[in-house]
């Protein structure tokens, strides 16, 4: 759509305003508290209301037919629906209006469910009065609503995948195979995320490890021409909106180019070490290092935070592959849709919680997985403090269910299955080891129940607790004290190894992600999907989809499925070449605009510009494609010349007045 003005011609026939009011029962949700009949009768008496009706489920087909017929029969030109909130069914009812030949934007939804019946169920009269007021306010606003023409914008046939973990790879692969160009931006120097470090994932049948899955996906993604991979890269700026995002990506320097033959000489000379985050803190790595064997890209990288740029590695590198003054580069991408597969961080218990950090005998589940996997620091041998532990105690729900002051409230879903899996691996490898599982509920849901049965069968000792256990770290031995709630005995378990079954937390950089991509977070801190059931992989912001553990704890299999689901949503977007944009953008009344430039300077999207008229004076102009419809300019415009469609002064002021016309 070219950038000429959004002219609202053929405004709704300015003759008589005819409003239809429809109040929904929503089963008992509304009708259980609010006297719907009273509200309907009240609405009938409001000026310009020609038809007021009620139905048990307005959103259902019969409910929608009710509206369609009324629009035709009573020639309605405004519709007010008092039911659930707009984010639930505004699209649904707009479609109903459109089908009945009425402009979809003369619809006003008022949420008497979330706004009144659900929150004032103890005072039905007040709830009914409030519902009446809300309907009156909605009618006052509806009276001044104007029809708006749908605007469509061009969709760039490219997708951006933020995060190269298992979910990001799954999304990228699906979209690429579907034929769309995909750009993966991974913060770390290698792909695979946490899944690549998860060791063996199953107990019986063909052995599968996290790394096998990542290798399979990476191999397919690497060979697919549609996919472009940027590792060691971060998104720094996001502009534009659905269908037309402009992304600025910073490619952080690797300081090692592809001449590197991984001979490892540089590692020997490198004087600086840091805890190895790819082994979750077990053992250390140098400033220059290969993240892990068989990673992609299989290239050494220098970690700028720990490197002192002493240059020893440069001298010793036979291939001259190290260049310490490699600068960071910046590229921009024009994409239609974005999939956030930004993953999670494992919960890191603070020092002292259950003795963590006070003794090498207290490790987290992730560290255990590293110890048990063949490509781990101890090549799969469970060695703690040089010895093989005989008594291993798992403590579950660390960091979840509020078991400790520092813990989150939510359940991290997959730690029960993951830890029982590791218990079975230990039993398989060391039959004489005694494994205790100190737990609240064992939440091995669905088919994972057989993990629980197999664990019992392998004589894993389950200790159920209500109050959290206490871990005391003595001089050389660790004791776990807990009250077993099903035998009402206080047990002291001498432990050679305590494994804290840690859950998942939102990644540290969740704050930056939020402001960068304008996506919200739920109560648990993870990214919030538009609706848990209606659209579990879409965010509230158009064109941005959420895959994997970004929206909450998931197992690896579930992350891959969520990756495909997010890809499906992105594919729906990219398979269209234009996308309809909400027309609630700002419009300028040129007779009033004095060209004072106030609006130009406060628009965060630079959507307003001053245009020089022939007579030399200046007038503001809005580019509908850039305008995101926030309305800030409308509030600031000193001569009320610029107004936001459907949030104009003449649409809000009547709402304020309606509050008091009791």
């Amino acid at each position: 759509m070219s950038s000429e003005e959004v002219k609202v011609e053929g405004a709704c026939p300015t003759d008589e305003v005819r409003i239809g009011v429809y109040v929904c029962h929503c089963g008992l949700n509304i009708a259980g508290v609010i006297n719907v009949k009273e509200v309907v009768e009240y609405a009938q008496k409001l000026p310009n209301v020609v038809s007021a009706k009620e139905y048990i489920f307005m959103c259902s087909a019969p409910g929608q037919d009710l509206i369609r017929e009324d629009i035709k029969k009573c020639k309605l030109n405004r519709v007010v629906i008092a039911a659930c909130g707009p984010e639930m069914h505004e699209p649904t009812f707009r479609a109903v209006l459109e089908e009945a030949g009425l402009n979809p934007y003369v619809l006003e939804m008022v949420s008497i469910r979330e706004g009144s019946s659900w929150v004032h169920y103890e005072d039905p009269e007040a709830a009914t009065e409030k519902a009446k007021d809300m309907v009156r306010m909605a009618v006052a606003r509806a009276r001044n609503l104007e029809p708006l023409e749908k605007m469509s914008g061009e969709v760039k046939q490219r997708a951006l995948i933020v995060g190269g973990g298992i979910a990001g790879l799954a999304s990228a692969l699906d979209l690429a195979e579907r034929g769309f160009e995909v750009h993966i931006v991974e913060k770390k120097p290698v792909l695979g995320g946490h899944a690549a470090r998860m060791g063996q994932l199953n107990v019986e049948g063909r052995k599968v490890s996290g790394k096998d899955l990542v290798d399979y996906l990476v191999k397919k993604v690497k060979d697919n021409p549609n996919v472009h991979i940027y590792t060691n890269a971060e998104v720094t700026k996001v502009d534009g909106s659905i269908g037309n995002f402009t992304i600025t990506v910073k490619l952080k320097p690797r300081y090692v180019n592809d001449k590197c033959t991984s001979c490892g000489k540089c590692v020997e000379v490198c004087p600086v070490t840091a805890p190895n985050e790819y082994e979750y803190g077990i053992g250390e790595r140098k400033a220059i290092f290969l993240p892990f064997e068989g990673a992609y890209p299989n290239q050494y990288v220098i970690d700028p935070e720990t490197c002192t740029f002493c240059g020893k590695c440069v001298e010793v590198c036979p291939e001259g592959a190290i260049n310490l003054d490699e600068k960071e580069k910046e590229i921009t991408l024009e994409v239609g849709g974005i999939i956030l597969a930004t993953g999670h961080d494992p919960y890191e218990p603070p020092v002292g919680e259950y003795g963590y950090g006070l003794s090498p005998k207290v490790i987290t589940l992730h560290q255990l997985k590293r110890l048990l996997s063949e490509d781990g620091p101890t090549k799969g041998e469970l060695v703690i403090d040089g010895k093989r532990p005989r008594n291993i105690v798992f403590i579950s729900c660390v960091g979840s269910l509020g078991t400790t002051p520092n813990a989150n409230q939510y359940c991290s879903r997959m730690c029960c299955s993951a830890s029982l899996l590791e218990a079975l691996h230990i039993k398989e490898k060391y039959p004489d080891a005694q494994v205790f599982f100190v737990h609240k509920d064992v939440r091995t849901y669905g088919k994972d129940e057989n993990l629980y049965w197999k664990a019992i069968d392998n004589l894993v000792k389950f200790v159920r607790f209500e109050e959290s256990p206490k871990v005391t770290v003595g001089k050389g031995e660790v004791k776990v004290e807990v009250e077993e709630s099903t035998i009402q005995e206080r047990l002291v378990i001498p432990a050679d190894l305590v494994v804290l079954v840690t859950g998942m937390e939102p990644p540290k950089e969740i704050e930056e992600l939020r402001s960068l991509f304008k996506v919200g977070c739920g109560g648990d801190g993870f990214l919030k999907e538009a609706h848990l059931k209606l659209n579990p992989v879409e965010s509230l912001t158009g064109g941005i989809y959420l895959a994997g553990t970004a929206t909450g704890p998931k197992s690896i299999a579930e992350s891959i499925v969520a990756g495909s689901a997010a890809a499906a949503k992105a594919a729906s977007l990219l398979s269209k070449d234009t996308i309809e944009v909400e027309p609630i953008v700002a419009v300028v009344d040129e007779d009033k605009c004095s060209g004072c430039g106030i609006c130009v300077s406060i628009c965060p999207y630079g959507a307003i510009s001053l245009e020089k008229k022939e007579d030399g004076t200046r007038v503001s102009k809005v580019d509908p494609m850039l305008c995101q419809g926030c309305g800030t300019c409308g509030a600031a415009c000193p001569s009320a010349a610029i107004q936001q469609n459907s949030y104009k002064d003449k649409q809000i002021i009547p709402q304020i007045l309606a509050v008091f016309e009791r």
Partner: protein
Amino acid sequence: MKPVMVVGGGISGIQAALDLADQGIKVYLVEKTPSIGGRMAQLDKTFPTLDCSSCILTPKMVEVARHENIEILAYSEVLEINGEAGNFKVKVRKKPRYVDVTKCTGCGVCMKYCPSKVPDEFNLGLSERKAIYIPFPQAIPLKATIDAEHCLWFQKNICRNCEKFCPAKAIDYEQKPEDIELNVAAIIFATGYELIADHSLLTDQYGYGRYANVYTNLEFERLVSATGPTGGEILRRSDGRKPKNIAFIQCVCSRDIRMNPNCSSICCMASVKEGILVREHHPDIEVTIFYMDLRAFGKGYQEFYDRAKEEFGIRFVRSKPATIVENPETKNLILYYEDTHASRYKAEEFEMVVLAVGVKPVVPDSFVPIGEDMFAQVKDPYLDPVASPKPGIYVIGMLNSPKDIPDSVIQGSAAAMKASILACKS
């Protein structure tokens, strides 16, 4: 691009159909019963947000009905599938409704005049429907269907009331089943689940079917639902009175080596939700939930479980009651259980008991290979969890493993993605 067929009109199938159609791919949505909506249509509220189930489902159903790329084949069954991935030839039988769908407006007049009463499957037999019926008010397609087994005309060729009173003259007793052949690139099976309510354990150990006030969780859901037989009022089957207390027993026919070793994933949260619904509308009714491991694993589930305990005062007892004995006069039910947190044997009387019965998938006869644990086999549980071993055939929702609504919706979208790749190649 060849069309794709989705078998099963539940929430998972609907989501797959929508995501395919949004990509411009034609979809045939085959549904066995007269209306799409599946099991979710029978639910009142959904956990953990307590949204009313039809507020989520019906708009998607309407979207499916209105989508130009989706053709709904309701009241139809798949007879035969041959061909291979990218080029399947599927024979579908459109079962006769004995109602001309082009004329029927779904006004429901025929239902008023039809004399023959039949237990209503939608309300799990708690109430009755007529021989000519519309499954539920928000059905899509909103068309009547004549159930030949109970129609007096077909059984004893008398009555024909519906024909007399139908304003749209849509009744057509001579309608024949119509077989059509469809050429599709991929087939997604989303045939959903049913409760393992027919196992002898229910009747012997818990007296379901013998004692009036013992319900399954789906029956209770219909009871609590505003569109249910009692309009949301909780009334005992024995004397129609409001119970003073209700007990929920978890893991009935789940995690049980004798018939279903899996955990059904949804019954813990379903019971917590139903408990909250009871406590919310009838604070005078005491609710007790007997559980072994309360599986509140999903997003927002634990907070929902905490609220059930703290805010709604639901009592949770870690125990699996061994048996139920009915007090003949009062029809109350005495539960014999061990409170494992006190290692104490107890017998407690409840006025109503709800069994959280385990689920088993509805298997589309031989089209999909079934694993030994009743659920459909998948090609690769990690890399291709929605594909069945047969190329081009996908299995989603409850058919491939027990899961809740969000996961079913996500699997629907995932299968749509995989099928769209196949469809684009063909």
